[in-house]
């Protein structure tokens, strides 16, 4: 493998990892508030659709990205109604949300299949893009990629340094403690669901506005599910999610190039690798004990009035 191919591989890793990073960060925020949302795939593809349709009508990719986030948040809102208002089963509701989102996007998007978007164009950051290796790998992309670089640190700061973020995480660990502190844990979970869904939607927007520049069915092709696995892989920590998204993206980019170079390793084996790593991460996290595992109240509903 020559040097040029290696640099191109790293650049492709960042591009393949970006939609995963947004979706993973969204699901991570939701799960830290104590809500399991398996509807990532459905919210993500609806985000891709909202982004497409708004860009198609207005031609403004920033407005389209905002619409994708808000649209996905509306879909996520349904999950809140089921789980927070009616105390429904979070797993079932999330799965239903995926089926609903994929179906609805197919239905609404059917007349537009194959329509192109202008979307975001890549834009080289002055000076930084001229650095050898780092320039082409990190600084010759589109704006959504640049925003994704700072996202894990912003989320980490929010979790650790703001009282709102601390309360949100507490709602995922010990909701009754939040209530004892005079705050409403249900409200924190509403915030977790809607803010999380917003970023999942932006991940979808990346697919229709940057990655493919078009609308079609099956645009997410299972990336939402990878995000669910990545949250576990990341032990619910934002910076590890960045690592995980690039690792998964990198393996995808690597296996394509290994095939192109004619290596004998079967492609099916390479494609399995990210999932094998997730299982390994799960094993490690349970072996290490509580400190590095899931939020304690993840998946448990809050009894009304408790």
């Amino acid at each position, binding site marked *: 493998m020559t040097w*040029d*191919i290696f640099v*191109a*591989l790293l650049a*492709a890793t960042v*591009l*393949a990892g970006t939609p995963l990073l947004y979706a993973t960060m969204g699901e991570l925020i939701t799960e830290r508030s104590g809500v399991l949302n398996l509807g990532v795939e459905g919210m993500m593809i609806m985000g891709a659709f909202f982004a497409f349709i708004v860009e198609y009508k207005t031609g403004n990719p920033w407005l389209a990205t905002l619409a994708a986030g808000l649209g996905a948040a509306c879909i996520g809102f349904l999950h809140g109604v089921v789980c927070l208002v009616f105390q429904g089963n979070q797993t079932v509701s999330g799965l239903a949300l995926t089926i609903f989102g994929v179906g609805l996007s*197919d239905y609404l998007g*059917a*007349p537009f*299949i*194959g329509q192109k978007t202008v979307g975001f164009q890549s834009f080289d950051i002055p000076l930084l893009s001229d650095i050898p290796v780092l320039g082409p790998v990190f600084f010759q992309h589109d704006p959504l990629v640049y925003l994704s670089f700072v996202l894990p640190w912003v989320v980490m700061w929010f979790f650790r340094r703001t009282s709102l973020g601390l309360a949100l995480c507490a709602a995922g660990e010990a909701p009754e403690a939040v209530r004892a502190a005079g705050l409403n844990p249900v409200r924190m979970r509403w915030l977790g669901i809607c803010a999380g869904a917003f970023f999942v939607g932006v991940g979808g927007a990346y*697919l229709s506005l940057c*990655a*493919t*520049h*078009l609308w*079609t*069915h*099956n*645009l997410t*092709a299972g990336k939402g599910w990878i995000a669910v696995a990545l949250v576990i892989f990341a032990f619910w920590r934002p910076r590890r999610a960045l690592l995980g998204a690039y690792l998964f993206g990198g393996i*995808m*980019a690597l296996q*394509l*190039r290994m*095939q*192109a*170079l*004619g290596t*004998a390793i*079967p*492609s*099916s084996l390479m*494609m399995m690798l990210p999932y094998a790593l997730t299982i390994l991460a799960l094993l490690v996290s349970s072996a290490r004990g509580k400190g590095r595992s899931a939020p304690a109240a993840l998946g448990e509903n809050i009894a009304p009035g408790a």
Partner: protein
Amino acid sequence: MRFFNCAAAFLAVCGMALLPFASSASAEDAAKNVKVGFIYVSPVGDEGWSWMHDQGRKMMEELPGVETAMMESVPEGPDAERAIKNMCSKGYNVIVATSFGYMDPMAKLARRHPDITFLHCSGYKHSDNMTCYFGRIYEARYLTGMVAGAMTKTNEIGYVAAFPIPEVVRGINAFTLGVRSVNPEAKVRVVWTRTWYSPDDEKKAAEGLLDVGVDVIVQHQNSAGPQVAAEERGAYSVGYNTDMSSAAPKAHLVAAVWDWKKFYEKFINEYRAGTWKNGNYWYGLSDGIVDISAYGDMVPADVRAKVDAAKASIVNGTYKVFSGPVKDQEGKERVPAGQVAPDEMLLSMDWFVEGVIGTAR
């Protein structure tokens, strides 16, 4: 509560069992007209596989005395059987299903409904009232390979392929034979995506190939993702299914295309004349069911002339694509000189010809 669930399930099953009897009367009313039902695996709106078959349905719909209906996005498996059964019970005379996984349920129902004609595309089971039909798209791929072989400057061509099954492997081999008939130095690099339709993944696969130095991208995928990758990087591309030049106007050299309308036209005319015979049909360039699209402006006249001449010799039967000697990747002779690969070999192909870089599994 459990009792009600059981009762509801029981009633639902009874209802389904009774359905065929309930509507058998309508079959006689419709006897004068031909009713043709189509079942597709994907939506028809994507200019892909189902869209092409639906052009044939629309053509039939125009004919007097022919009534058609279609169901799109029917998953292979139990849902397909329900969909076919439903059409059987509604008095359709002809039922068309265009995905491989519909074969077994269709063969089962064909035994049960001897008066209905069943058409199944891309499988191998056939009977007195069931036809299997497909096209030798590899003949068109050979011709597109000649164009790609003439246009490559790096002598490396990248093939974005769906699944390692005989149909796809055969296409890659025919394409490579075409490439090397005009450019014996050229190599074809293969990447499997294990998707039929995923624009993002298929585009990324093409980018991976472009990164390692290919300058022509060809695809066996249903999305235009690989075409877009070639366009963005200033490379050339070869399309599949339909003329894909709208997705990549500067890159698109030519495409291997299907024209299913011709098959459905032939079928409906013979069916109505009472001369249609069910069987196993594998149509080629000479039937017009597979073809190549118009050339892109960048393809020079001498290349066009050469490819057109090869097309003419395939159409009139003087040339067969898999004519020996054909060697595989290890240099082993698979088809001896002076012989032509039999159809059984083509239908079970799981090895690559010389000049392909990649693994056929």
